[in-house]
């Protein structure tokens, strides 16, 4: 093993960042879980027969335990959930899809009631549960709680543009139903029973100004983000470099690191969680506008600026809300608000807009995390390895490699026609999708140009990609040339990043075959019961 390899390994005992994509990433949003955006995916649809479409998945409400009854995980009826698209490059939305939810109880909000008491002297008493019997694709009559939503397309800036309802392409209606969460197998019969029940709420939709219909679905799904979360938070309580010749994460002839973590699905502690997904599938032609075919996306959640709690709270009116929509959550690229933005600005970032991202530039050009790690561990590493390295962290300042990855996109791949440095998830809609079995979890870094950071697919291992990029992977050639030949991006050099070629990993593997291959791709959620089914 080369000396640089050992250095990379020794550096692993560092307190790296909290790689939880965007789950509870900022102090204030952790108080508002129903508005907390956790992951955003955007990719050219790879479902058979859906080429020419773009799928966008915005996940909310982190770390759902499937047994979280009796109320489970409704979205916030006072919130505004949005998916924004910039197709020109000015970092201002050209299209915005707005979701707003309404919760109602059965019987005109009175709820299902039972007659309780002796014959002739019964009292009608409302039940405390969200269902009073089995639910199936054929019947939701036993459902006591209903969640519906409207979907609106705003053309132009989200607050001043033209708003038009998205309609059901079959019925013309403007109200859609979100299926009840997966309470358990007794309620829904089986996983297949829940899947069939939920599938009927995948709607074909007519999108204003778009000649072909799209699809929408909102509902609970199994968490797709994979991360070794607990050990990462615990001062990286493992050796996060590949300890094997895993064909995806450290293919031979690279040397495995003795004692390094190896790929094991058990390392993904989120595998037992559910999530709530807002899913859209839109014809690419209706998203890319007059730009160069690259689109940038981000999702936000907002509340009205003022909320007054009702001292006599009821189901229908626990509060009143008024004033301007005020943004509390924002997510484009994964891991930015966790890995890059400092704690004092995390909630500020959540309330900000991409066109003002210049205010966060220092976090990217001069990231604090590598410097901190270097200060903490350079001496121990040199002492351990009997080396005299000047730095472990990349030394190219400004970090143009990170600016490219996070703020501008890569020219010729996922850079918009006009370059406005801003934190967006950028997708080139002209890059042909790759079928799931052929996708590479390390995306572009592994030569798969249809993967992250050219958009993001469910099977892209963004944790490992981000680990490697932060430590300088872009300073080394990427296998994106003909027949996998290495291409030097010219952003920095290997001399700038002494550990930039190490096979960093959290040992929590993910790939496209972990997911469905049809819309909405994320799998049927885990059931709340029986015990052990989680």
């Amino acid at each position, binding site marked *: 093993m080369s000396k640089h390899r050992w250095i990379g390994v020794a550096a692993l005992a560092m307190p790296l960042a909290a790689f939880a994509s965007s789950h509870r990433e900022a102090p204030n949003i952790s108080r508002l879980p129903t508005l907390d955006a956790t992951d955003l995916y955007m990719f050219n649809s790879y479902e058979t027969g859906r080429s020419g479409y773009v799928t966008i998945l915005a996940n909310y409400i982190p770390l759902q335990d499937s047994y979280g009854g009796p109320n489970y995980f409704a979205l916030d009826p006072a919130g505004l959930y949005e998916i924004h698209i910039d197709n020109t490059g000015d970092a201002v939305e050209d299209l915005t899809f707005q979701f707003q939810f309404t919760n109602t109880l059965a019987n005109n909000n009175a709820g299902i009631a039972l007659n309780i008491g002796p014959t002739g002297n019964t009292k009608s008493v409302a039940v405390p549960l969200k269902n009073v019997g089995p639910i199936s694709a054929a019947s939701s009559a036993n459902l006591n709680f209903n969640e519906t939503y409207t979907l609106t397309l705003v053309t132009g800036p989200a607050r*001043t543009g033209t708003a038009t309802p998205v309609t059901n392409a079959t019925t013309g209606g403007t109200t859609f139903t979100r299926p009840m969460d997966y309470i358990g197998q007794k309620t829904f019969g089986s996983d297949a029973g829940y899947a069939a029940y939920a599938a009927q709420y995948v709607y074909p939709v007519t999108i204003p100004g778009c000649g072909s219909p799209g699809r929408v679905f909102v509902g609970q799904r199994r968490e797709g983000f994979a991360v070794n979360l607990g050990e990462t938070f615990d001062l990286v309580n493992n050796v996060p470099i590949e300890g094997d010749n895993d064909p995806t994460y450290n293919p031979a002839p690279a040397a495995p690191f003795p004692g390094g973590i190896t790929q094991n699905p058990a390392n993904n502690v989120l595998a037992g969680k559910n999530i709530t997904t807002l899913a859209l599938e839109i014809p690419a032609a209706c998203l890319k506008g007059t730009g160069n075919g690259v689109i940038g996306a981000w999702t936000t959640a907002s509340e009205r600026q*003022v909320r007054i709690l*009702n001292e006599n709270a009821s189901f229908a009116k626990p509060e009143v*809300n008024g004033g301007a929509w005020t943004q509390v959550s924002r997510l484009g690229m994964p891991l930015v608000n966790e890995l890059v933005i400092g704690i004092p600005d995390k909630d500020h970032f959540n309330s900000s807009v991409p066109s003002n991202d210049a205010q966060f530039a220092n976090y990217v050009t001069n990231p604090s995390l590598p410097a901190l790690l270097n200060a903490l561990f350079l001496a121990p590493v040199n002492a351990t390895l009997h080396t005299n390295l000047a730095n472990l962290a990349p030394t190219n300042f400004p970090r143009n490699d990170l600016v490219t990855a996070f703020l501008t996109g890569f020219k010729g791949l996922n850079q918009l026609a006009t370059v406005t440095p801003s934190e967006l998830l950028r997708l080139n809609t002209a890059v042909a999708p790759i079928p799931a079995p052929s996708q590479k979890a390390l995306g572009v870094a592994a030569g798969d140009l249809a993967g992250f950071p050219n958009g993001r697919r469910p099977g892209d291992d963004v944790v490992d990609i981000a680990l490697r990029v932060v430590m300088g992977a872009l300073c080394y050639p990427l296998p994106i040339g003909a027949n996998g030949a290495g291409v030097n991006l010219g952003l920095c050099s290997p001399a700038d990043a002494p550990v930039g070629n190490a096979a960093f990993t959290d040992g929590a593997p993910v790939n496209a075959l972990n997911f469905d291959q049809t819309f909405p791709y994320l799998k049927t959620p885990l059931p709340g019961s029986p015990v052990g089914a989680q």
Partner: protein
Amino acid sequence: MSASRSGLGQGSEMRVAAGRQGRGRRGRRRGLIAAALALAALVGCNEDNTVTVPPRPAVQTVPFSAVVDQLFSNSANSMPVPIDNLDVVYDVNEDPSAFDALILSGAY
């Protein structure tokens, strides 16, 4: 239960009386609040989207109830009002019914 919470008896009459006496002050107060909120709204961006950091406006002391009234009157699609430079005086402490009129109005 407090008199103000029940809305009955002497306490209620006292509140009405205080309200009559306070109308003039309330009008002036609303003007000050509007000015304070407008001043706060000036902190932001230029048309070219560059961020400016203007001199920190003087802190404005305003009653919480008036801030709520003012912000509630803003439309959903208006810009949120910065509140960094508002020193809020909580004039409705221990009075959970202070906003009952707003809650019961059905407007929100």
